[in-house]
């Protein structure tokens, strides 16, 4: 492992893992607390439409994907806000439609055949330095925004109606959170792949929220857990020559189910 750390690509991978851990710990906790996991999944998959669009129009991938994904996310956020009964269905359709659009557009691209797998699972060991810088900036923005609107986010998660009655800008915060989730997802897709993104966004926050006394502490714990998952996953990937993203998810899922099983056993004993 230690000789691996002297390799530049492993250093980059570790840095990417740490940055992704912070990003997913903060946004993920807010997403899980507001029960927007399905929405985040929809956003992550719809982002693929943005990737396809960028290739089709031969434009830079990152800005186009960010714009497309934030747009799709805000549409989904608007649908969620209106609380129509088939919200889940509509998001599910947008989820699939975004992805299909991306694939079709990539099919139509002359001469270019994209590797879908690289977007699904990402490639944390081939992260370019530019992406690391973008992630670091995003993390700074995220932490600043979260600190600024922390009380509003907590109140919105706990009791949206009361927060609105007290004059907290609930609608704005809902859109803000969705947009933050969208930007995070896009930046992380290149780093980690959209399946890993959803795992990092949900597993660690939901584990952290069960124990922590406040949402802020849950964010810190979720970040710490994400770091742990990423480091363990990277080591496993290096040691056994596995796909890094899948190895990280395997670690996260194992811890999640172990914790779930322990919870069930404890409850049985308590009863």
């Amino acid at each position, binding site marked *: 492992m230690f000789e691996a750390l002297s390799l530049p690509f492993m250093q980059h991978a570790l840095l990417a893992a740490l940055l992704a851990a912070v990003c997913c710990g903060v946004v993920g906790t807010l997403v899980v607390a507001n029960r927007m996991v399905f929405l985040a999944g929809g956003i992550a998959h719809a982002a693929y439409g943005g990737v396809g669009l960028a290739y089709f129009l031969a434009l830079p991938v990152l800005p186009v994907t960010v714009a497309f994904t934030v747009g799709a996310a805000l549409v989904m956020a608007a649908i969620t806000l209106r609380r129509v009964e088939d919200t889940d269905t509509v998001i599910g359709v947008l989820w699939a439609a975004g992805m299909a659009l991306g694939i079709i557009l990539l099919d139509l691209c002359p001469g270019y055949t994209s590797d879908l797998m690289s977007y699904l699972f990402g490639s944390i060991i081939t992260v370019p330095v530019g992406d690391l810088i973008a992630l670091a900036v995003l993390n700074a923005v995220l932490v600043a925004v979260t600190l600024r609107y922390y*009380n509003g986010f907590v109140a919105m998660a706990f009791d949206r109606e009361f927060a609105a009655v007290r004059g907290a800008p609930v609608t704005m915060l809902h859109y803000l959170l969705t947009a933050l989730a969208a930007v995070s997802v896009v930046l992380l897709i290149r780093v980690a792949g959209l399946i890993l993104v959803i795992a990092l966004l949900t597993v660690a926050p939901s584990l952290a*929220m069960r124990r922590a*006394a406040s949402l802020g502490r849950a964010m810190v714990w979720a970040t710490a857990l994400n770091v742990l998952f990423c480091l363990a996953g990277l080591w496993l990937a290096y040691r056994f020559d596995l796909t890094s993203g899948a190895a990280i998810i395997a670690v996260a899922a194992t811890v999640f189910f172990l914790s779930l099983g322990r919870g069930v056993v404890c409850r049985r004993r308590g009863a």
Partner: protein
Amino acid sequence: MRDALVKADPAGAKDYAAGYDRFAASCDALDADIKKLFADLPAGKHVFMVFHPAWGYFARDYGLTQEPIQQLGREPGPKAMAGLIREARKDGVKVIFVEPQFSTSQAATVAKAIGGTVVAINPLAADWPASPAHGGQGLAPGAGHQQGVQVRQPVIAIDGLTFSYNGQPALENVNLRVAEGERLAVLGPNGGGKTTLLKLILGILRPSAGQIRVFGDLPGRHSARIGYVPQRLDGMAERKDLPITGLDVVLMGLLAPGRIGFRHSRDEVRRAEEALAQVEMPQVAGRRFCELSGGQKQRVFIARALVSEPGLLILDEPTANIDPQGRFCLYEVLSRIGRGVTTLVVSHDMSILASGVTAVACVNGRLLHAAEPRLTREMVELLYGVHAPECPLDAYLRRMPPDIAVPEMEA
């Protein structure tokens, strides 16, 4: 008066279409009261605050200054205020009419500057002008002198309110006044429109017709002055996985528009702890909210509403999720903390009448109001319907204890 009003402002008159007669009657009443007031007025300087949408027409009818008033109604700057005071000083008796939204502190400033008193005229108040208790005292110049300003403005004023869900009327022609310090119980069956009424007062829903004023303004404008205790212990707030302590929940009551930041000040934390002590729950401050019992949660919610020292406390079904014994403890807490605070408590449970309320309203599509915490016969019929003599419910309703419902011979 009425005809003049329609002629002067047909569009304005249309706004009051639902309650036009009531509106016109209040104009006439105001007319008469102002005449009487002017007859009795001793020499001196006075600032009048008129809580009536037609204040402008009265000003014209009586040949009173109107020009500076309109500036005053729209939050005068320091320059406008100075001009107003200069004008007011020139004449002997100066009468200034102000709009309902006008801040009482500004009227007091003008009054102080001219060495006069503030007199509030509020025909929209529940006890205007028929109530003998009023006796014109609220009108008498100087009546408000001791406290600077005496404003008899209802906390909640609802006129000709109708609300429909998808064309289905849930509430029809509701009129209601809740005066300051009043503690009103709103009773009604499930689906009768109680929660709809609450949401209208809170500004979550908008009326289909009629108008609502809360603190003399549109609902939702003064959200920071309302302490709201929601019904549900179900749904979001019942979630097991949300990490939040009892103290955090109480601190949520200090949210306000534009509030940002992460930390609460030491003073805010102290206030939250005091609010928890008020509901006898200081021990839950550091505990996770989701681990508390239903009754404890409800009390934490009340503390959350109290922490902002609200001008209006609204409780939606406070007893819905609590066992009977816990309920009466809650009533004790309620009757103690609510004293002096204008309170609106909504319930389908008649035992709420034992929680120290001063008035009762029944809602079931329409609304009936009684100024004492006892149901009239009409209210019992609105709540339970009329039953044939052979129906057991008929006998039950007739035997209702006199401290809950007015007995038949009195009715």
